[in-house]
């Protein structure tokens, strides 16, 4: 079996995450437990081999905290909105499936955007086209083309947030150029 060797450094974020989960599960952060957890993490990463996630190498923790707050608010709003729609509109709901072109070609970015979109108000990823890249999103309670454009802009804005948090330098530069030209997300 020919496997691409990946360096330990590339695997490090995954290993740290696994060790933290191990510590959390035992509710025990003593060095002995963490070392044992690290051994298990390395073993698992070697046996159950996965292609490495290509991180961009930058992460803006302040923006991430702000985004986490917005995300939490959106989750709450989404839940009550769905509750309201289920109770009031019920069988007379009308929906839409829309295509949203994304900026970033990185798998991590597309996946993260898809996850966030699935969790915030009234949208669900039906299909992903990695080559274009394009997300096809099912949106709850859409009756007019203006609403479609609004949702599209929201998805693009979410992706912009994620790019600002952990996108590569090129993506951030492209984003800055786009907003300085005053191009409305569409």
């Amino acid at each position, binding site marked *: 079996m020919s496997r691409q060797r990946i360096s330990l450094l590339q695997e490090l974020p995954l290993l740290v995450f696994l060790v*933290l*989960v191990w*510590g*959390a*599960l035992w*509710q*025990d952060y003593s060095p002995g437990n963490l070392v044992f957890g690290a051994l298990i993490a390395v073993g698992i990463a070697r046996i159950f081999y996965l292609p490495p996630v290509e991180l961009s190498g930058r992460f803006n923790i302040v923006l991430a905290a702000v985004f986490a707050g917005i995300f939490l608010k959106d*989750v*709450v709003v*989404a*839940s009550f909105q*769905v*509750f309201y*729609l*289920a*109770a009031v509109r*019920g*069988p007379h*709901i*009308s*929906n*839409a*499936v*829309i*295509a949203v072109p994304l900026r970033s070609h990185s*798998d991590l970015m*597309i*996946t993260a955007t*898809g*996850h966030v979109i*699935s*969790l915030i108000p*009234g949208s*669900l*990823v*039906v*299909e*992903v*086209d*990695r*080559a274009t890249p394009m997300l*096809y999103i*099912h949106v*709850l309670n*859409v*009756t*007019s*083309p203006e609403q*479609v454009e609004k949702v599209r802009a929201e998805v693009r804005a979410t992706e912009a947030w994620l790019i600002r948090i952990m996108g590569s330098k090129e993506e951030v530069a492209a984003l800055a150029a786009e907003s300085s030209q005053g191009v409305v997300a569409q």
Partner: protein
Amino acid sequence: MSGDAILDGLTMACLLVGALMSLAAAIGLLRFPDLMSRMHAATKPQVLGLLLMLAAVALQMRSWALLPVLLGAWIFQLLTVPVSAHMVGRAGYRTKHRRPDLLTVDELNPVVAAAAKDLAGDPEDDGGRDRGGDPAV
């Protein structure tokens, strides 16, 4: 009013709203007309409901060592719920569950139709577009 009473009150509020979220999911399941709409009801309230329930546990146990486990459980939920929702939604869209009468706009149908035509024309091609569509691959 003592601190304990306030925390107890918060716990009760969390439990009640969390239970209501479960009810919201059930009402959505019963009242929405098609699979895709039901999926919205099944996924979103679930996430908030679990967060509130875990918050209630944390408020009652009042132990810092417990927080990472509870947060971890919630984050795993955040990571897994969209995956299963996407898989079910994708399968639902491509089988007979699409209800065009309920969609005001549908920008995916032409793409899927074209892919299905490709598939019929070339049996060796197992839908390369489809495979590319899985974020996990």
